[in-house]
């Protein structure tokens, strides 16, 4: 309705007057270029020269020194050496130089690092946490309290047989308490197991798993 049938583009095309108001005259908008723009377009204006005073010189030198220091230090993580299969005379010396550097560990404040980044993280981790129920005394105490609770419940049951509803609520609460305790213990145990398992350092991640999972095929 709105587009008075002029052109297929609907409202997208401009009228002659509109084009003129953009500064495009008749015949000027036909210059379509099909070639992609150049990868490195020519600079229209030469950039201003950088000021090169003594301060800049100093900063450039300091920067290079800092980078050089970092490259020599263990902070610069080197890739494993790739060989192209050709044995060279200089290989031995290169290897020696590499080994000398590789042995070094970055000098950090290890307390400020997460445990998994500290050296020998795996060995530190083997700490057995005592299970609560291993101790015989604690176990017997626990059992006694449970027994007491049971007898109490029974007493309650014989005394007020009529008020079934109230008693049931009580029982429910007790049950819940018991369940809660059990759940807590369960959770703690789960926690240690989980942590221990997790800290298998993952190096042999996809070496054996695949074979185990598949099982025999008949």
């Amino acid at each position, binding site marked *: 309705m709105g587009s008075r049938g002029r052109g297929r583009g609907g409202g997208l095309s401009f009228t002659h*007057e509109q084009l003129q108001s953009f500064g495009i005259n008749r015949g000027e908008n036909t210059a379509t270029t099909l070639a992609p723009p150049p990868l490195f377009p020519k600079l229209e204006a030469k950039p201003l020269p950088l000021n090169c005073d003594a301060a800049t010189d*100093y900063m450039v030198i300091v920067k290079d020194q800092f980078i050089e220091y970092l490259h020599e230090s263990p902070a610069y993580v*080197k890739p494993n050496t790739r060989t192209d299969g050709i044995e060279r005379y200089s290989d031995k010396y290169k290897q020696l130089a590499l080994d000398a550097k590789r042995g070094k560990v970055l000098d*950090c404040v290890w*307390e*400020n690092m997460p445990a*998994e980044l500290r050296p020998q993280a795996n060995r530190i981790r083997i700490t057995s946490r005592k299970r609560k129920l291993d101790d015989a005394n604690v176990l017997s105490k626990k059992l006694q309290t449970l027994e007491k609770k049971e007898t109490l419940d029974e007493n309650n049951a014989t005394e007020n047989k009529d008020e079934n509803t109230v008693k049931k609520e009580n029982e429910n609460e007790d049950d819940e308490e018991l369940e809660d305790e059990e759940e807590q213990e369960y959770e703690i145990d789960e926690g240690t197991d989980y942590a221990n398992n997790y800290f298998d350092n993952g190096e042999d991640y996809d070496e054996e798993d695949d074979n185990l999972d598949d099982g025999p095929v008949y």
Partner: protein
Amino acid sequence: MSHQLGRVVSEILHQYFGEIVQKVGHDLFIYGTKPIPMIVKTTGLPRKQVVDSLRTLVKFDLVSFEPSFNEVVADYKLNPDNVLLLIRYPRYLLQIKTKFGSEAEILVEELLQQASCTASFLLVTVAAKYKDDKKKNITLVKLRDVFISIATARYIQQAPVADKSEVPSLEPVATIVPDIDIRQLAQAIATDTLADVSDNIYWKVNFDRFHQDFRDDIMVKAITRRIDENAGELMHLLLQNMYLTSAEWAAESNPTPVLDLRDAVDRADRTDCDRNLLQQYMDHYLRVLEENGAGFVVRVGEAGGGQYVVRGRDAATQLLLAALDHTVTERLGSKAARIFRLIRTKKYIEEDDIQKHAMLPNKECKELTYKLLEEHFISIQPMRKAASSGAMAKAVYLYHIKLHDVAQSLREMCYRALHNTLRRAQHTRAAHARLLDKQRRVRTIVHTMRVRGEPQQHIDDVEETLTPPELSTLKDVEARLKQLSAAQLALDKNLFILNWYFMYPH
């Protein structure tokens, strides 16, 4: 967290720490926070290398961590802003050198290299390093004094302290200037038992303090260029007063009474300005500073002979505008800059009015306006007219400048330029790696020969292994690398102003 920022950060990490750290850092930049196994999975690197990279990144405070849901493993997160600071390290050193001398520079350099270390370790290593250097004549006592003075001036601070858990959370602590026993340190050097004297207080460089210095320098320099040295000195004193009364980065400082300022002028002894002139005409200078000082300083009250406020936020905005004007001039020419300034002064302006006021031919004016629009320097706001008017004038288009957005796009430009220079330097270095390596080797050999005192002829022989064509290429390469480094430093200066502007909420 833009695409350009990611590219810059990745390139910087490559230049400073190598390919593997770059991979890990880039992975963290893309995904946000991640635990180690995830990094191992996405980067495809062996776990040991990922751990090594993370150690490096955490050590230099480029990556932070927090316990994940499991509490014994950590989630790592890259701090791109800190990575960008690596470019600024030379500037910190220059600043501390001009302010505190070369001992301070050596101390801060060592501290930057170590990222964080104890005071005794720092002093002992520096002393040991320069023990044989008779020229500099560095003694332990001098180092100790310098250390205490830069600690008092807060250029270095105590590193945050960790609690004893699997994934420690770092708590910042207040810096206490230590009492260092020189005799103990001297003994430690003599007997080589450093472990006995080291305590558990770690130090690191306080970048924020340096940034405050940079800001002050920029403001003082701006006023000096605009008015004169005395006004610059007055600005300096106002800023110093600001430190006493308000927060460092406050958008507006607490008011400073003129009387305080007069006291400060009387006390100040700077050689580069005429003190008598400043004392005599301080009121005039303050008036000029207020009226013609780009809004850095305003008078807010009459109490105590007049009260003045330093406006950090306005200063940042003014500097940003100056930087923008400059960028437009350099990119699109002075005529485009005229249009840009016109739109800024008029706030909202129609296209026809631009043409009228800018006094440019119709076509050229439109072309430049569209170019400005295309490069995101200006924005357009359509205003619908009432439906009754004809099809011709459907809407009015008002041109205006959204300063925040323009600042963002300028920052993107800086990132892109920084990335390009880094990339280009990297390419040049890789292309001439063999030659540069050879040069380095020749230099070390010549150096050791000099130390050993071998005859000049042998040294010449070694030096001649670099042929004249090689030498000329090396000269070219070095000049280009130096130019690129200088460009990086200049870009970083621009980024500093931009970040200062973004520091205040808009």
